[in-house]
């Protein structure tokens, strides 16, 4: 239950800068996610917090206490490993009690706290089971109980759900979130799954090539992506490049896109993101007040169950994807409308 400060932290492996001058301020009790593709440095950063990876530069503080010089076994972090790392030669209770014994607690206290921790992860009655008798989801719960029972300053989770099947993954992410709220514990969560990150986090840091591209709440990350990478990595989007024509108007290929946020001087190169669900396919009704309209040809339709994805080709060849609830009537010439307020200008357009 501690704020965590990461200041200018770096680490290179050979020529690769795995973590490159990262600075983050994680709040007390926050569910903070490091999101990025594999090799972006998110796991390295997590292991730096745990103490399993040395820093080339920078420092890490838990509240006011500097920890990057403290050996890993004295940092009081609780880590949940991707493959659980449940000790195969200890039973469930033995696993959960392991950290408490290391802290020299009295036998009676240990038993009580182990029981409480197993209750928290809904494993009452499993204390005497052996790891090889448990399913992947149950091993996951043991790993979480073992990490939280020591009352760590911070709970570190390294892609904990990646080995579970899709349904269990959704179930467990809700459970981890509830547990975190109930304990009020600070969490650093590493994942490459953007849906997981959006669903669970208070704030997300999107990482690429050892650097943080953007930090923000899930809605800010999704709706106001700062860079082309964030816009395309988190959710699907129409990524367009063009030149500012005049204030509020951008020339993309041969098409003029209206964007409220386009305030750069005319002639500036820009990149913009337009989410598929911000576009609307018009049948015969007029466009909503203030919306802009584009004409094109419906090229492809993907039925996705709850929604349908449409691919529209504009007259100048630009392809746009859009998502709508209802399946369409027919192909051919279509009109697409969008709200200029939802066109996001990306910082690295030049």
């Amino acid at each position, binding site marked *: 239950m501690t704020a965590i400060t990461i200041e200018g932290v770096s680490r290179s492996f050979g020529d690769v800068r795995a973590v490159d001058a990262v600075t983050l301020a994680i709040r007390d009790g926050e569910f903070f996610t490091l999101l990025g593709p594999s090799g972006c440095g998110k796991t390295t950063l997590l292991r730096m917090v*745990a*103490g*399993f990876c040395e820093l080339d530069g920078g420092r890490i503080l838990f509240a006011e206490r500097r920890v990057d010089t403290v*050996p*890993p*076994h*004295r*940092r*009081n*972090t*609780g*880590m949940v*490993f*991707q*493959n659980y*790392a449940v*000790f*195969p*030669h200890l039973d469930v209770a033995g696993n959960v009690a*392991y*950290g408490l014994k*290391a*802290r020299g607690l009295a036998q009676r206290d240990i038993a009580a706290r182990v029981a409480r921790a197993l209750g928290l992860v809904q494993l009452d009655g499993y204390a005497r089971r052996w790891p090889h008798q448990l399913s992947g989801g149950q091993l996951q719960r043991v*790993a979480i109980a*073992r*990490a939280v029972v*020591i009352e760590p300053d911070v709970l570190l989770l390294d892609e904990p759900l990646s080995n579970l099947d899709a349904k269990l993954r959704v179930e467990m992410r809700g459970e981890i979130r509830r547990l975190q709220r109930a304990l009020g514990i600070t969490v650093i969560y590493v994942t490459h799954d953007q849906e997981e990150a959006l669903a669970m986090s208070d704030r997300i840091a999107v990482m690429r090539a050892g650097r943080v591209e953007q930090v923000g709440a899930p809605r800010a990350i999704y709706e106001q992506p700062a860079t082309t990478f964030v816009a395309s990595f988190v959710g699907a989007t129409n990524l367009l490049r063009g030149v500012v024509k005049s204030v509020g108007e951008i020339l993309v290929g041969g098409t003029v896109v209206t964007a409220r946020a386009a305030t750069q001087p005319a002639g500036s190169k820009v990149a913009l993101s337009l989410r598929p669900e911000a576009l609307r396919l018009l049948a015969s009704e007029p466009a909503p007040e203030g919306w802009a309209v584009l004409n094109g040809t419906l090229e492809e339709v993907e039925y996705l169950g709850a929604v349908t994805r449409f691919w529209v080709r504009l007259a100048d060849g630009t392809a746009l994807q859009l998502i709508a609830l209802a399946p369409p009537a027919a192909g051919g010439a279509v009109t697409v409308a969008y709200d200029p307020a939802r066109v996001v200008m990306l910082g690295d357009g030049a």
Partner: protein
Amino acid sequence: MAVAAAFLGLFFLYPVLKVLGASILDPTGGSFTLRNYASVLSSPFFLQGLVNSLGVATAATLFTILIGVPFAFCVARLPIAGKPVLLALAALPLVLPSFVSAYALVLMFGRAGVVTGALRAAGIPFESIYGMKGIVTVYALTLYPYVVLPTVAAFQSIDASVEEAAQNLGAPRARMLRTVTLPLVLPSILAGGLLVFIEALENFGVPFVLAEDQPILAVEAFKLFVGETADNPASAGVLGVLLIACTVAALVAQRALLARRRYATGARRSAPLLAVSPMLRRLGTAYCWAVVGAALVPFAAVVAISFLAFKGPVLTYDLSLDNFSQLFGRSYRPLANTLLLATLAAAGATLIGVPIGYVIVRHRSRLSAALDLIATAPFAVAGTVLGIGLVLAYSNGPLILTGTALIMIIAYMVRKLPFSVRASSAILHQIDVNLEEASINLGVAPMQTFLRITVPLMLGGIVGGSVLTFVTVASELSSTVVLYSGPWTTMTVAMFQALEGTSAGVAAAAATVLILFTILPVALVYRLLQRYELSML
């Protein structure tokens, strides 16, 4: 770590350098000369020895591959009966002393052999088993597991989808086996074959029993060194260096092969057994049992013969314990020595080998890579050569060890170190490093974590590895014959002496005792070994 490095430096590198030194220095030891090489290499006798050694090793490699690959294929891919037993029995010759098998061949097919006599009585002309053909036969029968075990593992590690892809692309089964399956196991076959080559090259006991007047390098080095007329460390050194050069070349080739072996591992789903006709299945079953039987019959024969009475050198068919009372009538000392020396050497090799294995696996660096190489290197040095080196190094000077039990234990530890290092590193590869990190993360310091997590998880493998070291030390002959002194006579030496004399019965009894002390410990820990026997290769 420093202890392990110092140990290897003092008792492996230094003695080997001494052998090298003896080979390139003139008799006064003062100046460099190549005359020793010139004289050895210009001698038709030693040249014949080199040709014989390489020829025998090559033939043994070919035969073990010819026997082992079909065997491995049957066990891994055909629905044949009794597979676990078959594999256990197939691995057995690896721990049994091969010179006992050689001796059994002499008892059966030698000049006065049981079978030879029977054949002659039936009017079938039969020359004796001595010479190259006998040596190659024994190697084929005792070394084929080196090919079988890795090849079985390779067959089983081929993912089913790879074969399915071949069939899906239109390859019939025979074509699939030839173009996909076989190429995938080929590196393992070659790796096993090279192990056979090295073993055959440096083996002392088998050619000693069977070669008669044909020169074999490992034997001639020993004879030159402890020669009754005039010992000749310079020529012995040359032979030793030649042996080392051959094995190093083979080992380098093996490493190069293994380094590129990336594709035969990690099957999610092993390829299924092939559906074959009952005829073919019976044929496969018969073949496998025939191979295992042929390999083990010599050992069984020795045991049986040890319980029969000898009249002088002539075998009778009367049951008797005379051989054993003769063996132990002289003294129980050899048995006690063997048990004591093997126990101490196994403990020592484990104590040094496990930490080396740990460092190699968990702390990858240039230093640990060097340690890995040096710890594997004793494998390339024949026991006789190491023995000679130790004598050269520690007969005088500040540290005199020649004639002590300690020098024998040291030799055994050096010889078995590659196995204990490999065994422990193989287990460590199976222990997820995250387990250790989880323990540290929960507040247990690294050293305690090693004791509380790593050691308990390694324990099965450590015990299994120690037992294997124990049994192979108990039947170790090549360095023993160079290093032993009277009070420290071992069972192998007792058998060796009985062979040199004419006490065939005593030799058989000694062999039986050796077999007993090999099989019993291995059987006791077999469950542990099953998981790791492959890693011992």
